[in-house]
Structure formats: structure tokens, C-alpha cells
């Protein structure tokens, strides 16, 4: 495998250790032997990619680790990444029948990591490609070309399936490094970027062409893609992190230019997805370039990426952080800050804990790391030193909230030197408008057929966050596969 893509050698995330380290052989064997080997297993049904979970676990128990890895990768080319980043508590592990008997469920994620980790970068994937190819198309190239936009897990999973069946996928990525959020957005205590990148490069190595630094719609037009390729897959993820839209949020320069346009974002046509809450796409588009935040304010996605890939992010002078949002990105951001030594990290959520889209087990882990969770609270405006719009952040005015709306007269000061906004990301309405017939819904998500992932344009398919509004890597993989199967069917016709 090439070392085509380089990450900085000094990155903040490297200070984080694995919360769930690699199992030793005896740990893995022992855990695998506890598996009941259910028939028609609920864990498999809970997996979006339908990995044969009892099948791969049985193979670990017998010491057939390579066979186990194959079983996993047959269903999910990102089986290694998913092993480490999947919220197994709400997927396979959540479905484990042992819990129903009051026993601890099988640690499926850790077993999956154990089975796959030794094989990342080996020829196992290539062997699979050759085997599938022999039976699917006698190993002959179909001569069909598919363009995939965005090099995240959805596109790579889609391309991987297509290569196996003799097609020629080409992935376009506007950034320099592939992998999408799986590289830049995974909480470092789950997986470091170099492991994600290694897995990504491995998945790509089975004959997928990748063109980085190419932005579709800018460097290459959507129209030329449609003309040149037999099918298109859109896997571009979500857009910018949404803004709070409250006074003091943007720098003076930005404020002068566009601040006045920003209205109250509470209520209205907002959508709450798994990953958090988003301001509607319409507004996000209207905000356009205005996403430059003032000092002390970070978008959660940007901040996590800084921690993952950068060495310059620092928390000097930050005693108290307010993280705004109730999704898993908010929880991740808060946990990471707490692990980095922030004494006082607070998640401020406008609804109740029971209503939050973030996972209960993630919030529990955040609390264990010292994060405070404050429900039914809203930021009203930001306070800066000397009331200077470009002055240091010193806090915010918050209000109690009922049904996500501020209760008049409850405004009070909340001291904070840093504010992290995790209220969701914008959709991709603007991008997809370049493809005739492709539609997005009110929240900016690409509308596709449930069974095939096909958009309103028969040649164009989509999957991943840009379709589901922000879910897990495993969902992206499943949606990439879904589209690939449909594309293959279409190209065979």
C-alpha cells in the first residue's frame, strides 16, 4: 500500500488513548466463546450492512481469524473502521439476546476489531475482489465508468462493490486526503486519523481511482460528469456547521457584511437528525460565506477536525466551555475537550435530556469524563471583553427554555471562554442543483429511492450523510452498497 496521503506527525488527537483497546487473543477467544450463535441473529439484523455477526464470532472462537475477517469484509469493506466507531450499543450489541437473560451482551465491536485489525493493508481485500469478480463477470472489465463525488465511506463502499463487478469507478474529492468524516471526525478515543486513513487507503487499493483536489461543480462541471460517465454517485456528506444566529457570534467584519440577515433560528423549519440539529438548508445557503465565527467560537466539526489533524489548537485561558447542541457531535466535542483537560465543559441543550438525539450511552460516558449536561437552556447573545465585537469571549446570556423557546425573564449570564456550536450541519441543496432531476428535501437532504438509492435523475445515485442527514459510518457503507447494487443492475441491462 502506498503512503500517498500524509497526516501531520504531531497531532493533538495522539494524546488520546483507546477507550476500547485491541483484545488479546485470550480475551477475544473467551468473549467469542460466550456467543450463543443465534439462528437468524438479531445482531446481524441490527447491522445496517448485515454482517454475519455470529458467523464471524464463531470463527474467532475456533481460531480462524482470517476467515472471520473475510466474513466481516464480505458485508462491509469498512468492517475495521466500523468495528471501532460504530455505536454498537444501539446496533448489534443492543440486540444481543444475552441481555435478555441479564447477562452482559457480547462485545461485538471489539471482536470485530480483533478479527479485522491484523488484515488491514493485506491482500485479503484484493483476493475477495478477484473471487467475486470471477463469479460475477468472469473477471472481465465491463468498460463502464462511474463517477463518485466525495471520498467518504459511502463513495468508497460503493466504488469497492463496483470494482468487484468489473466496473471502473473514479472518485472525486475536493480535499487532499480521502476518508471524509471517518478520517477527520471520529472521536480520537475511538480511532485515530492514521488508522482511519490506513483503512481508507486499503479500501481504495482494490482498484479504485481517486482524484483528490478536484471539486465537482467548480473544477469539473456536473454536466461534464453526466456526459462522461455511465452513472454518478453522490456521497458528499453534509455542509458547513450551522450558526446559532445570535448577536456576537460572528467577527466584526462578517457581522457588518451579513450579520443583519441572520434572524432567530429557533423553531421554524429546523430538523433534528441523529447527529444533532440543523438550521434549514435554505438558511444555510442564505448564510453562504458568512460562516466565519468570531474569536472563541468554534463549529464542532471544525474543532474536532483540528483536534484530529492539527497541532495548533490550544485551550490556553479556557476555563469554561459551553457546547451548544444535543446530538452526538455535541457530546463528542464535549468529551474531547474534557479529555484534553478542560475543567468545566458544559453541554447546553434547549430541550430535555429524554428528547436529545444523542445516544444515552454517549452522554453517560461524557458525564463520566466530567462533562456537565444542562437541559432546557438557550443562548441569547454572546458577551465579549469590553463589548468589543472582536474582543475575547467572556460568556453568554442564556435563558431557560420551554419547548425549545426562551422563557422571558429568565435571562442570565453564563461565563465561558469558549463556545462550541454543534447544532447540525447544512444540507447540500446548492451542490445537487447542478444535477438535473436530483431533489433535496426541506432540510437539504438528497431525496432517493429507499430500495436503490437512486435520485430523481435515473443516472444519479446518492448515499451517506448527504442523504440520511448525518448518521454513522456503517449507514454510509450500507447506502453506498445499496446504490452500487442498483448501479450494477442498471449497467447490466
Amino acid at each position, binding site marked *: 500500500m502506498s503512503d500517498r496521503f500524509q497526516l501531520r506527525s504531531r497531532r493533538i488527537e495522539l494524546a488520546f488513548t483507546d477507550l476500547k483497546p485491541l483484545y488479546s487473543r485470550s480475551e477475544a*477467544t473467551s468473549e467469542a466463546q460466550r456467543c450463543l450463535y443465534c439462528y437468524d441473529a438479531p445482531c446481524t439484523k441490527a447491522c445496517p450492512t448485515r454482517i454475519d455477526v455470529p458467523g464471524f464470532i464463531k470463527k474467532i472462537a475456533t481460531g480462524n481469524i482470517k476467515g472471520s475477517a473475510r466474513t466481516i469484509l464480505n458485508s462491509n469493506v469498512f468492517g475495521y473502521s466500523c468495528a471501532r466507531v460504530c455505536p454498537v450499543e444501539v446496533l448489534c450489541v443492543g440486540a444481543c*439476546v444475552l441481555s*435478555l437473560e441479564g447477562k452482559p451482551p457480547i462485545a461485538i465491536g471489539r471482536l470485530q476489531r480483533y478479527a479485522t485489525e491484523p488484515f488491514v493493508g493485506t491482500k485479503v481485500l484484493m483476493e475477495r475482489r478477484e473471487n467475486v469478480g470471477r463469479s460475477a463477470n468472469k473477471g472481465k472489465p465491463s468498460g463502464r465508468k462511474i463517477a463518485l463525488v466525495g471520498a467518504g465511506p459511502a463513495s468508497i463502499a460503493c466504488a469497492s462493490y463496483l470494482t468487484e463487478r468489473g466496473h471502473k469507478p473514479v472518485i472525486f474529492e475536493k480535499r487532499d486526503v480521502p476518508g471524509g468524516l471517518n478520517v477527520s471526525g471520529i472521536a480520537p478515543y475511538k480511532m485515530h486519523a492514521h488508522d482511519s486513513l490506513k483503512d481508507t487507503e486499503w479500501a481504495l487499493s482494490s482498484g479504485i481511482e481517486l482524484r483528490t483536489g478536484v471539486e465537482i461543480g467548480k473544477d469539473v462541471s456536473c454536466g461534464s460528469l453526466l456526459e462522461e460517465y455511465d452513472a454518478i454517485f453522490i456521497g458528499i456528506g453534509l455542509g458547513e456547521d450551522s450558526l446559532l444566529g445570535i448577536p456576537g457570534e460572528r467577527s466584526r467584519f462578517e457581522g457588518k457584511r451579513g450579520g443583519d440577515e441572520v434572524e432567530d433560528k429557533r423553531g421554524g423549519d429546523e430538523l433534528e437528525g441523529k447527529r444533532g440539529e440543523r438550521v434549514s438548508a435554505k438558511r444555510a445557503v442564505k448564510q453562504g460565506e458568512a460562516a466565519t465565527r468570531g474569536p472563541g467560537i468554534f463549529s464542532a466539526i471544525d474543532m474536532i477536525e483540528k483536534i484530529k489533524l492539527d497541532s495548533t489548537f490550544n485551550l490556553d485561558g479556557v476555563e469554561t466551555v459551553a457546547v451548544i447542541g444535543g446530538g452526538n457531535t455535541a457530546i463528542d466535542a464535549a468529551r474531547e475537550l474534557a479529555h484534553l483537560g478542560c475543567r468545566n465543559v458544559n453541554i447546553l441543550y434547549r430541550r430535555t435530556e429524554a428528547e436529545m438525539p444523542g445516544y444515552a450511552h454517549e452522554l453517560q460516558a461524557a458525564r463520566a469524563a466530567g462533562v456537565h449536561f444542562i437541559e432546557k437552556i438557550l443562548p441569547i447573545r454572546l458577551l465579549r471583553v469590553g463589548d468589543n465585537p472582536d474582543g475575547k469571549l467572556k460568556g453568554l446570556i442564556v435563558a431557560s427554555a420551554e419547548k425549545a423557546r426562551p422563557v422571558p425573564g429568565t435571562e442570565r449570564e453564563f461565563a465561558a471562554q469558549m463556545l462550541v456550536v454543534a447544532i447540525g450541519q447544512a444540507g447540500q441543496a446548492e451542490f445537487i442543483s447542478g444535477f438535473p432531476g436530483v431533489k433535496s428535501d426541506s432540510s437539504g437532504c438528497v431525496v432517493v429511492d429507499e430500495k436503490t438509492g437512486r435520485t430523481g435523475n435515473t443516472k444519479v445515485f446518492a448515499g451517506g450523510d448527504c442523504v440520511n442527514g448525518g448518521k454513522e459510518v456503517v449507514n454510509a457503507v450500507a447506502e453506498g452498497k445499496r446504490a452500487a447494487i442498483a448501479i450494477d443492475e442498471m449497467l447490466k441491462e
Partner: protein
Amino acid sequence: MANLSIDFAGIKSPNPFWLASGPPTNTGEQVQRAFEMGWGGAVWKTIGRPIVNVSSRLGGLDEADRRMVGLSNIELISDRPIETNLAEISEVKKLFSDRAVIASLMFDSREEWHEMVKRAEEAGADGVELNFGCPHGMCERGMGSAVGQEPAVVRKITSWVKEVATIPVLVKLTPNITDITEPAAAAVDAGADGIVLINTVRSIIGVDLARFVPIPSVGYRGTPGGYSGPAVKPIALHMVSALARDPRIDVPISGIGGISTWRDAAEFIALGSTSVQICTAVMHHGFRIIDDLIDGLSNYLDEKEMHSVAELVGRAVKAVGEWGQLDLTYKVTADIDPRTCIGCEICYVACRDGGHNAIRLPAGAEDEEERRSAEAREASTRPRPASAETGRASLTPVSRIPSVDATQCVGCNLCSLVCPVAGCITMKEQRAKVEPASPNCRR
């Protein structure tokens, strides 16, 4: 509290738990420590002309996380001088006069047997055990199981020993034979005062797949060994019961073979053993297991309102019979308790593929979408019954709980054996409306 003491052909012991001849009874120091902890008796590691043992002697069979459910050994008899063993027997017997100390012996010629039986008696042994069972090494030299496999030789050597013995003579048999009652009957006919069984089962416990050598391996060679441990218990129980049912065997039986717990011991006693002997479980966990053995058996006897071990001896023997005596009208069918079922559906696949296809999944369970919506419907509406044991309501989706088609169920038990939840699948007796009828009646 029940009286645990026994009288085995005149050998008295405060409880029926004896250490079997083997590594745990290799030295006086070991036997003394065992007696201090409460063991009722010990059969000394077999004394014979000293031999040289090989290095690497044991191989284990593991099941899942449980180690050594079976053990195979290629160790021979005692490699210590005869004098040392006899001196230590004397010492132990002086310190623990109430315990049974039995000298296990293995020799070739009539003269040697005569001499050694006398010397064992002089040393203070309460009895001698003739090792006609060892299935490895010694048998190649015409001893051990080579004797046990020839009833005529069993008879001859036993009678040699009886010519001189004044203490009880126990004969230890090998299971590596078609009909265990034949050597046993020969021994009793020749005057044996008790029968001991089973010695180990000839075995190869595994193959080293990296080197293609059997386990345990001595360098690049291996040899079949003697199999013991929990896995041989069923073989031993059968053989003990076969002797207990045989009218020719009118002497006490000492049962051995995979006994690890008081339950195992109680089963051996119920099938006709007066004493039980234990070796592999001690090799695994040490002499300390005696505490639970004594305590557990005592509590069990109390529960059953039995006053002594003697009351338990042979209690299950009369229920063991020929297949032809079984009642063909008797019928059980499986019953799945939906309150404790966890929905693994292992019973379903076992019955379908390896049974009689009598377990059904809920209607629509094969169709995933239908099943999911059924689960959702069911979860929201039906009040769930609570488990009788825990009082907790089951959370298992009803769509995953199989049921038994009683018209197809043959009552084989398989589902109840594979079910991971204790007590979830039970076999319910169906009342017969006709007179019992056995296959033999129909002949």
C-alpha cells in the same frame, strides 16, 4: 447430619471420598496433606519395579473457556523405590489410623505379587488394589490393561494374590474392553473383595497441527495415553451400573471416572458405588475440593432424608434396564417458557436440522419486514409476563419466541439440551391413555 462413613469390604473410611491412584498420591507428604484436609482414603500411586517416566506426559481437552474437561496421560506407575513408598505408607497410616490407605500394586510374576502383597500388609496398608487397568506403557510389558483385557489372566493373578493376602484385595479394571462384566466376574470368582473402575480410556487427545505430532508429545513422537476427567464420566457410570446390575458381582464397587463434584459422586453411589475415587479433579484444583465434596454430599443426604451413604448406594440401579423394557406409550413433549425465552432460536435450528422439525417460529417471522412490524406492534401493546424466578418481565420480542408443534415433537429432549437458558425448555409428560407397553411385550 447424615453419616458419611463407609465400610468397603472391611476397609473403614470416615467418608466415601478416596484419592485414586495417581500423581496426587505419589508421596506420603501429599497424602498427609490430603488427609489433613479431610479426604477419607487414598490409593497409593501404583508400586512396582521402578520405571523411568518420559518428559511431557499430559494433554488436555478444553471446551470453550473451560479447561481440561478431559485429560490424557502417558505417565507410568511410581518411579520411586519400593522401600520409600512402603515407608511412607507406614508413616501416613500411623498419623491417620482412621483413614483408608490402599496400596496399588503392579507386578509380573507370582513370586513378586506374593512378596509385595505381604510387604504392603506389613507396612500397614488397609488393602491392596491390583492395577489391571493402565492402558499405556505398562500394557506393552504384559501388565496393566493387558491383564484387565484377559479375564483368564485377571482370574489367575487375583488368585495368586488371594493365596497370601489377609487384607481386602481390590481389583481395578480397564474400560478398554467390550464387556466389563467379564473381567469383573473373573476377579470376583477368584476371590476379589472389591472391584474398582474405571481406569483411564485409551486415547489420543489431540494432534499438534504445527508439527503433526500427537499430544502429549515427547519430542517428535507420541503414544496413545489414558483418558480421564469429566468427559469420561458417562463411560464410567455405565460400567459401574453394569457391574451393579450383574448378580455375579456380589462385592462392593469403588467408582472412578470424571468425578469432580459431590453431584458426580452421588450419581456414582446411586448407581452402585460404595466408595468413589478422584484423581483428575485434584490434579486440576487441588485437595481443597474435598470441602465441597463432603459438605455437598452431606447436605444432599439430609435433603433426601437419608441417614447414611449406605442408603444411597445403588438407589438408581433398579431403574437401569434394557432398552426393550422401556415403555413405548410414555410420551413427553417440549414446552418453551415464553417468560424466560431470550429468542436465540437455537432450539429451532437444532430441531429443524438435527431433530424432527417440530419447532415453529411465529407466523411471519421469516419475512423480515412483517416480523419487524409485528415486533413493534407487540412491544407497544401486549403486557409481558414476568419470569417466575426473577420477577422481571421478559423483553424478548414475541416474534422471536418459537413454539413447539406437539403433534410433531417426538420428545427427544434436544431443544432443552441446546437451550442456553436454564429451565426455559422443559419436557412435559403427556398422560398416556393406554396401558404401558414395552418393545419386549410386542415381540
